[in-house]
């Protein structure tokens, strides 16, 4: 921790006074962390072992019953699967597009600020509002997207209304919303690469831009890419706004996603115990993702 070299720091009373002040300064934060993070986290784990329902006076401990029910719960399984598919689409596409756009912007002196602003705009926009706009764009009969496709004689699908396409529709919105964020992080990563590396590579005979990317840019972007990947996965797993606003998990549970299912079970059906067990699964997923990130960080991508 930080070294403090007060002129009178040798004196023990001064040290004790400093610790007292530190406690005083930190105590509101500690108190609030215990109240709003630690306690509720413990509570959610405990509630996961009960049949607590809001509105009923008493509850009892049911052991692993909730978890047993989860395993055979078709809605929950559907929800996990949909979230996985959504994440598997949104994460790679938004990373590749984010990196691609960042590289293009970095290489092109003209219009840098303009393009950065445009691609970043969705990040700063109210997602619930923009989701409503997307709903209009996706409208099967009057939506501009299908009207546009019809010009080429293509019959567009009922994007958000058909169970076969709804996850893809939501994924498109998810990608649109997150590319700018990834782009900005990649732009920061690109600026941090020392120019000398490129000149050194050129001296070593690396001529084509593809080789330059493969041998210098990509490896040097390692830490950024890992960071972007982790955040993208976590944000995709947390998809909620678009589901709640546009599909309510439908049609026919085709767009049930993890957080929406938890919301529905806990705050609409008020089955708090059961929803807590789902939340524990959600937390476990986050923990695994974090562990994976640290593992990777330790092994692969340390250059400095």
């Amino acid at each position: 921790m930080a070294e403090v070299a007060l002129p009178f720091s040798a004196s023990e009373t001064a040290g004790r006074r400093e610790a007292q002040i530190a406690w005083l300064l930190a105590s509101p934060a500690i108190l609030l962390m215990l109240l709003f993070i630690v306690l509720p986290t413990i509570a959610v784990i405990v509630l996961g072992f009960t049949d607590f329902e809001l509105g009923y006076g008493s509850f009892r401990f049911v052991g692993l019953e909730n978890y047993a029910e989860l395993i055979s719960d078709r809605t929950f399984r559907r929800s996990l699967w949909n979230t996985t598919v959504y994440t598997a689409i949104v994460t790679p596409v938004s990373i590749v597009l984010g990196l691609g756009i960042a590289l293009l912007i970095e290489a092109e002196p003209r219009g840098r600020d303009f393009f950065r602003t445009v691609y970043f705009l969705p990040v700063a926009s109210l997602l619930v509002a923009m989701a409503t706009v997307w709903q209009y764009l996706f409208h099967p009969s009057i939506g501009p997207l299908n009207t546009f496709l019809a010009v080429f004689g293509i019959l567009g699908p009922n994007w958000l209304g058909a169970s076969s396409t709804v996850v893809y529709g939501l994924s498109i919105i998810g990608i649109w919303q997150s590319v700018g964020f990834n782009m900005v992080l990649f732009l920061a990563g690109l600026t941090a690469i020392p120019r000398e590396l490129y000149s050194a590579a050129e001296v070593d005979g690396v001529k084509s831009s593809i080789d330059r990317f493969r041998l210098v840019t990509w490896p040097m972007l390692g830490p950024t890419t890992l960071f972007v990947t982790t955040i993208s996965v976590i944000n995709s797993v947390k998809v909620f706004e678009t589901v709640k606003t546009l599909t309510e998990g439908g049609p026919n549970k085709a767009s049930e996603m993890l957080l929406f299912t938890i919301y529905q079970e806990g705050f609409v059906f008020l089955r708090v115990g059961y929803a807590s067990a789902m939340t524990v699964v959600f937390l476990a997923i986050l923990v695994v993702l974090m562990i994976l990130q640290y593992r990777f960080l330790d092994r692969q991508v340390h250059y400095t």
Partner: protein
Amino acid sequence: MTQSLTPGRVFRLTLLSLGALMFLAPYIFMVSTAGKDQSEIFSASLSLIPQHFAYVANFTKALTRVSMQNLLLNGVIVCGLILVLQVVVAVPCAYAMAKLKFGAARFMMALVMLGLLVPIHATALPLYVAFDKLSLLNSYTALVAPFSISVFGIFLFLQFFRAMPDDLIHAARLDGMSEAGIVARVIVPNAWPAVTAFAIFSVVAHWNDLFWPLIVVTNQSYATPPLGLLFFRAAEAGDDYGALMAATLIITLPLVVAFLLAQKRFVEGITMTGLKG
């Protein structure tokens, strides 16, 4: 520009422009559709300029069905309260962790790490039960309290304070300043870039948040912008796209304008904080 237009540059600019057009399309259609009347919207034409300008009618509908002023005001109150509390709580704590000898520093770091891992979605159920028991649902307290602590803020300020020279603080101490005085008059002014970055991150996150307001607020008079829009959609039965687009325009505008005015700071803020939501 001194550079000439090589084929490579033309290709790059074309790609970037096409992509930009696709990313802007939702905004373009939002503005265009907000000015169309019902019959024109249902004629499904791709024309962007409305035939009969229905902006006034649509905006009147949007402004009268749900009180937009009230929503925006709630958004400002909630985000403002959250931000002030977060900074007031996190800055002294981060200062203590970074610059003072402190037995609990390790324990604190563990708490912060735990906090970074656990999102509001995970703590929402017990918090909801507690707020319900305390009859605090449908109040600013319920909307603000869980976010009064931002571990992310502590984390960010901690990084920033560690990089701050100790001499600054020593000098202040030798001048006889109290620790509280040091925080208020030396640390906070010097931490301004970190505070701005954090402010942008915090406001964007909470202005956009739907999950928690949806849970604790059922009464329209406490609705935040995203929740209000949800109520508006329900009241409009979903198909009056003209009015709906007018409403989305009104609700999206404040943050987008703020972003356009201070975009450099926004991008810096988001890059520096590197996290959202």
